[in-house]
């Protein structure tokens, strides 16, 4: 929207400044402790019976900090542009082990648990991001993913509580997500309501309906039920270290991975995908060549809602085994940020979702390890706001500049 060039520092300069600051911080806090006799050791384990890397905390952080400083400084030198870019990427990757080494000072932590937790906690966000991609690629902004997830979680659980069959619950969640999407599609496509307002309406509706459902029906049915079973994939799950991490998930996790791949294939290698993208970029042109814009949009928004509903089932049926008011806690909005991070591409959005999953996993990990800053434990609330702050940073475009489908948000008038 803002076509004018930004004033002030460029993104590269901001990133460079960030790494210089972080490098200086790491060096100044660790340099006095390097070489002390009783140096603290961070133990990083890979798998439960698995190799354990013993890293001297201060020395490792000093080395990483120095690399941050060098790459940040080089990034400001125009002549060293290519080297600096590589170093900046390396530094970005190194942030992840650096945080773990810092958090595990004097203790042991399991890296593989961290990875599997990231994958697990990133699942609903990735599903939400796929839902966002389906809707927005066809030109309909779907801010109602949160509401669709919440309804899916509530009705899915209610169906499970009444029938006793958890798969009926999952199916109901998917269908209810689709139903909410149908409302969104009717308002946004048929009645040409502003898509953001229509989405907000659905979010409010979802809060009301799920609250009513919970107090009126679910409370009596008794809480604390079983969740979806773990499904180890034969052979693959027997691979040491990697197997239990990647191939011993629950059904909705596998469904998420499948949907990411499927979304990519359908969007970019099928006729329907081409039509979806055409309608999202230039509906007038698509209409001229005989594509039914409304039908494409309706279908894609329905698909979007059903994926979001499945994401809702992750909360109540795969993870908690119960339904609480507002249990999606903003994941639907974070999913939109993941989608923008991934530039409306399925695999990119998956990466974004896993980044947010990492922040969620880190939050619990730091709580377990009782990490302290300046002698006092970090308040748990500070850890809880990590994903939200990360979302705002992503949206501010510090990570990557992104332009969405051209027609997203605009109702199509035939």
């Amino acid at each position: 929207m803002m076509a004018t060039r930004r004033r002030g520092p460029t993104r590269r300069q901001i990133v460079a400044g960030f790494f210089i600051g972080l490098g200086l911080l790491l060096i100044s806090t660790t340099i006095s402790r390097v070489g002390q006799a009783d140096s603290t050791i961070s133990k990083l384990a890979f798998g439960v019976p698995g190799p354990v890397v013993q890293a001297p905390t201060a020395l490792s952080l000093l080395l990483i900090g120095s690399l941050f400083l060098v790459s940040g400084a080089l990034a400001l030198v125009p002549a060293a542009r290519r080297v600096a870019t590589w170093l900046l990427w390396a530094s970005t990757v190194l942030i992840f082990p650096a945080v773990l080494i810092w958090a595990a000072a004097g203790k042991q932590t399991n890296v593989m648990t961290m990875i599997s937790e990231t994958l697990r906690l990133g699942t609903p966000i990735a599903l939400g991001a796929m839902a966002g991609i389906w809707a927005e690629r066809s030109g309909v902004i779907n801010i109602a993913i949160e509401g669709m997830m919440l309804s899916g979680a509530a009705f899915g659980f209610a169906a499970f509580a009444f029938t006793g069959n958890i798969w009926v619950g999952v199916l109901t969640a998917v269908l209810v997500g689709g139903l909410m999407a149908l409302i969104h599609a009717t308002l946004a496509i048929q009645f040409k309501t502003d898509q953001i307002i229509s989405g907000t309406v659905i979010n409010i509706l979802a809060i009301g309906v799920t609250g009513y459902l919970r107090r009126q029906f679910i409370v009596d049915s008794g809480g604390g039920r079983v969740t979806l079973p773990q499904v180890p994939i034969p052979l693959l799950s027997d691979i040491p270290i990697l197997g239990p991490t990647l191939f011993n998930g629950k059904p909705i996790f596998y469904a998420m991975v499948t949907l990411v791949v499927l979304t990519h294939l359908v969007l970019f290698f099928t006729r329907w995908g081409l039509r979806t993208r055409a309608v999202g970029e230039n509906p007038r042109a698509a209409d001229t060549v005989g594509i039914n814009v409304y039908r494409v949009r309706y279908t894609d928004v329905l698909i979007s809602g059903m994926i979001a509903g499945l994401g809702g089932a992750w909360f109540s049926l795969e993870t908690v085994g119960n339904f609480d008011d507002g249990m999606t806690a903003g994941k639907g909005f974070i999913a939109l940020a993941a989608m923008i991070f991934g530039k409306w591409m399925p695999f990119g959005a998956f990466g974004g979702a896993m980044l947010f999953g990492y922040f969620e996993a880190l939050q619990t990990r730091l709580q377990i390890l009782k990490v302290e800053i300046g002698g006092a434990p970090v308040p748990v609330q500070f850890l809880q706001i990590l994903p939200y702050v990360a979302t705002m940073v992503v949206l501010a475009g510090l990570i990557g500049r992104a332009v969405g489908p051209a027609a997203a948000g605009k109702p199509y008038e035939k």
Partner: protein
Amino acid sequence: MAQAVEGPAPSPGPAGFREYYARYAPYLVPVFAVFTALVVGALMIGLTGGDWLAAYIGLWEGSFGTPVAIANTVVRATPFIIAGLAVAVAFKSGLFNIGAEGQLYAGSVCVVLVGTLLQLPPVFHIPVGIIAGAIGGAAWASIAGFLKARTGAHEVINTIMLNYIAIRLTDWLIKSKTPYLLGDPADPSSARTMYIAETMRLPGFRVSDTIVLHLGILIAFGLVFLVAWLLNRTTIGFELRTVGSNPSAARYAGMSVPRTIVLAMACAGALAGIGGAGEVMGVRYALSTDFFSGLGFDAIAVALLARANPIGIIFSGLLWGGLLTGARLMQVRAGLSIDVIKIVQALIIMFVAADQIVRFIYRIPQRSSAEETMISRGWGGG
């Protein structure tokens, strides 16, 4: 025969009515929307086995039936009116402020700060409290405004994120024990802050054991007229509305669009912060993290229902307060969960947002597309 070809001369009665209807009915769209939502709500209650008539009679008596009920409704409506203004101001500027909730918390934290730290006579303490609330809310909302103006990041997601962050930070301020920050050491459950000084509490009439009709509603009325004046009679208001309806024209006319966006969010946040101040200083005298849950969405509803018209917000705010107040008696009379009201409210918003449905049902001419304010302009970030 010739008469038939020419068509009968329109008889003055029904045609006159039809003409008047086509002319003035558009103003009644919100009323029709509320009515339709109540009908659908009644159907829903009936279908799930409830007694809708008893429910609605209870709803009426509990909200506007007795003087005490009316006082209760007014007290409940006060934050809705003020927060509704916060959404409306942003809306007129082309921004969708979903962050009223976070701004209420940010403002209230500042109110509690000056209410517990300062010792002043009431004449000064009360204005200081209100100003503190306004500053807190404005600062919080400006973050989203600045990000929008500077990077184009969409304010909808940012204000929602700021809501979650504000709630967590407030929670930390209240629960932190080493050292105590805002929490009250005398409160074993550490669910609330310390009480604010007596000198900062808003004066009012005690209507019943639990209800004090406090000064807040007068503040709300004052703000309504202030906002109406600001939007329609000042240069700033003109800039806000121009940026909202046509940013390109605003830029061409030499207005600074980024500056106006930040200003609009700051105004919205200040209003929401005052709403928080009213609640803390008039009703609760302390702050908890559950005080304003969902109020941001209610504020959106109130503003949408009034079509972002400040005067209209008085009525939609009272309606909203009344629905929530009456819900209790409705629950007693008809044995229904209070959440029924939430669904009715959601239906009201749906019919207001998609007024094409209402216009279709009641045969009201459709709006021309020029009248609509578009706020879906993509996600920005670039």
